């Protein structure tokens, strides 16, 4: 590790030629080409990108910056004009010296039409508004309008644009086309074909981003129906992204279906903890209950996607078995205690432990700050430390083989041995030989990693902090209930060295407390070192002490984090 690590910035692409266009009379300069959303290759900049550059909203359904362009919803139709060219191939000028603009007689879809120098785009003319109203009316005539029972209500593009461009009453006097409802597309997805507006975002996502050509359209015209291949469920590990992509309520998640209306959900920026990729997510919660994860855009980590494995791995947070009480055990008798009386007892017991007789096992699922404080404690006792490696099969997109969210953080803080897990055997041996008398375990069940219950029984002092009860907490002299990541703040460092922070979405259950809080309470008494009071301060202090994090500050992390060298 170098002493002066540098913060990596994404490589700046070679400068691209800029061209000037006008959007609704305002001039904007945009690059001639922009990276394609899927392949990253430079492709000509389109009108919609030029409009976005100047913050002009062009309504759209099928267009998505991360998907290939389909151009089928026709909602983004705009009018445009290009400079008139004389026979000498030079622009014709108006009397006032400005270029004469030839307005195109036909509209163009903003999502697919490339811009050209001097082009003028009109997004708000009476004709454009008339076309939008027409398209929206067409989309709505066969839509079932069952918003009261639709999970998308509240985040539905059809609803949003109806408010902007819709009519107050329908002139549709015919009978609607009915299509299958409640179609079981796969293990995690339900499809309502009536609600579908056939934008094909889901088809393009699974075909072009995931590489699993699983969805398609059958029938013709207004009877078009999205479907999976007969007998083949739509079950790839990214299928739930199609629910996010769906601009209407056609694709719904079986997990989130009819659980809560989205307008009640508080949105908190957080991270997925299921693997080392650290996908950025938004946690949807209401009244201290978490309902869902949704991916959050971060180009240097997860684009706009996340895997189903990570998305559905949150049920444990509301497990009724959660550890919610501080427990102190004396011999066989365990008594329920509280923080106020248990902490001084624990501090006194730890203080009497002799250096060299202590081992500390922290989890790579804990935040970097917690691991940093644990490392401080360990250093005071000259303790043997380690973390538990956790692996699983990786895939081609986001899921990493390292299933710990913070392995890099565990390495940075010095808590994990190299390679991770190689000290576990030494600790077991130390306990067996009687050299190690005190074991501090955070977030792991060590009985499953070579330190069996028989060994734990030999210890003078076993301190365990965890979220769910396990064989280790059952034997611990002090059980300190900790918090799930949605109940606290902190940072993780992903496998590529991306330092990212996450925010608190819900209150912890019962007596459970953020680990940082009670470690900060313990440290001054045991080691004589006082941690900064705020989490921001603690992070900045840590960044100053860890060479790899030199120069990084909590404030600089922002919403999308900072890449450091590992």
């Amino acid at each position, binding site marked *: 590790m170098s002493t002066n690590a540098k913060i990596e910035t994404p490589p700046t692409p070679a400068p691209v030629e800029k061209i000037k266009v006008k959007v609704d009379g305002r001039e904007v300069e945009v690059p001639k080409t922009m990276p394609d959303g899927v392949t990253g290759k430079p492709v000509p900049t389109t009108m919609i990108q030029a409009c976005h550059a100047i913050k002009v909203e062009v309504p759209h359904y099928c267009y998505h910056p991360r998907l290939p362009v389909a151009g089928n919803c026709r909602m983004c139709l705009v009018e445009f004009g290009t400079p008139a060219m004389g026979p000498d191939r030079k622009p014709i000028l108006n009397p006032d010296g400005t270029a004469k603009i030839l307005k195109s007689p036909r509209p163009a879809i903003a999502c697919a039409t490339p811009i050209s120098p001097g082009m003028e785009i009109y997004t708000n003319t009476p004709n454009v508004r008339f076309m939008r109203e027409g398209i929206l009316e067409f989309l709505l005539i066969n839509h079932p309008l069952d918003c009261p029972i639709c999970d998308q209500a509240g985040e539905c593009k059809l609803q949003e644009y109806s408010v902007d461009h819709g009519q107050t009453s329908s002139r549709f006097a015919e009978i609607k086309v009915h299509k299958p409802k409640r179609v079981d597309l796969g293990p995690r997805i339900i499809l309502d074909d009536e609600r579908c507006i056939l934008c094909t975002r889901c088809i393009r996502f699974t075909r072009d981003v995931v590489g699993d050509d699983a969805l398609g359209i059958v029938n013709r015209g207004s009877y078009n129906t999205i479907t999976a291949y007969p007998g083949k469920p739509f079950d790839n590990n990214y299928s739930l992204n199609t629910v996010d992509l769906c601009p209407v309520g056609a694709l719904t998640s079986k997990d989130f279906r009819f659980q809560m*209306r989205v307008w009640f959900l508080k949105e908190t920026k957080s991270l997925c903890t299921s693997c080392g990729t650290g996908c950025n997510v938004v946690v949807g919660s209401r009244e201290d209950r978490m309902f869902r994860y949704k991916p959050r855009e971060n180009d240097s980590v997860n684009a706009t996607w996340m895997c189903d494995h990570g998305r559905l791995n949150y049920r444990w947070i509301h497990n009724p078995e959660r550890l919610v009480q501080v427990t102190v055990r004396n011999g066989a008798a365990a008594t329920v205690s509280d923080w106020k009386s248990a902490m001084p007892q624990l501090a006194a017991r730890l203080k009497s432990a002799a250096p060299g007789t202590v081992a500390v096992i922290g989890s790579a699922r804990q935040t970097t700050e917690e691991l940093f404080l644990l490392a401080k404690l360990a250093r005071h006792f000259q303790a043997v430390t380690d973390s538990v490696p956790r692996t699983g099969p990786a895939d081609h997109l986001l899921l990493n083989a390292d299933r710990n969210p913070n392995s890099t953080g565990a390495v940075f803080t010095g808590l994990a041995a190299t390679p991770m897990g190689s000290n576990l055997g030494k600790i077991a041996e130390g306990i067996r030989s009687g050299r190690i008398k005190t074991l501090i375990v955070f977030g792991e069940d060590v009985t499953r990693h070579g330190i069996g219950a028989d060994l734990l029984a030999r210890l003078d002092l076993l301190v365990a902090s965890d979220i769910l009860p396990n064989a280790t907490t059952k034997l611990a002299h002090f059980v300190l209930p900790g918090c799930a990541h949605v109940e606290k703040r902190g940072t993780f460092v992903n496998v590529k060295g991306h330092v990212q922070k996450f925010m608190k979405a819900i209150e912890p259950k019962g007596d459970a407390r953020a680990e940082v809080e009670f470690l900060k309470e313990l440290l001054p008494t045991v080691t004589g070192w006082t941690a900064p009071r705020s989490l921001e301060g603690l992070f900045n202090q840590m960044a100053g002490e860890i060479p790899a994090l030199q120069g990084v500050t909590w404030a600089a992390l922002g919403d999308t984090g900072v890449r450091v060298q590992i």
Partner: protein
Amino acid sequence: MIVNRKKLNFLERLYVPAVIGGFKITIRHFFKKKVTMQYPEEKWVVPEGYRGAPYLVKDQQGRTKCVSCQLCEFVCPPKAIQITPPGPGGLPEAGNVEKGPREFEINMLRCIFCGLCQEVCPEEAIFLMKDYSLNGKSREELIHNKEKLLAMGGVHNDKIQKWKTKADEARQQGL
């Protein structure tokens, strides 16, 4: 501010004319129509449009009309309404509507009878009825649950049965 009291003259100081005036008014009321009601033996019949206690109704097919859209819960100013959505499976009795409330509670201790829940309901499932006499022996008793709300609301005869029409149309189209 200083108020200057007018000095009373002799006649005013006697009080007798004022007392007589008072008696006149009282006696006049002996011969008027009675306005007092012998509640609870006699019950007040409330006018149309009276906003009493909110109840849930069923449709002609016996289905709870509420589809658990939770708009009333959202709009309720004193947060008196709490709805438990049905969860992923929906409710078996919901039929082609797919969704209904697993539990629906209105805390009548909080309700302010504003009628916003009725106004916002897209399904015409909740109505403020002419019930003004609400009492109970405990706080729990005044938290009306779905069963109680439905029992009090009864059946609402709709002219337009949109969910039934939808199901019929779909059946005609071979679905």
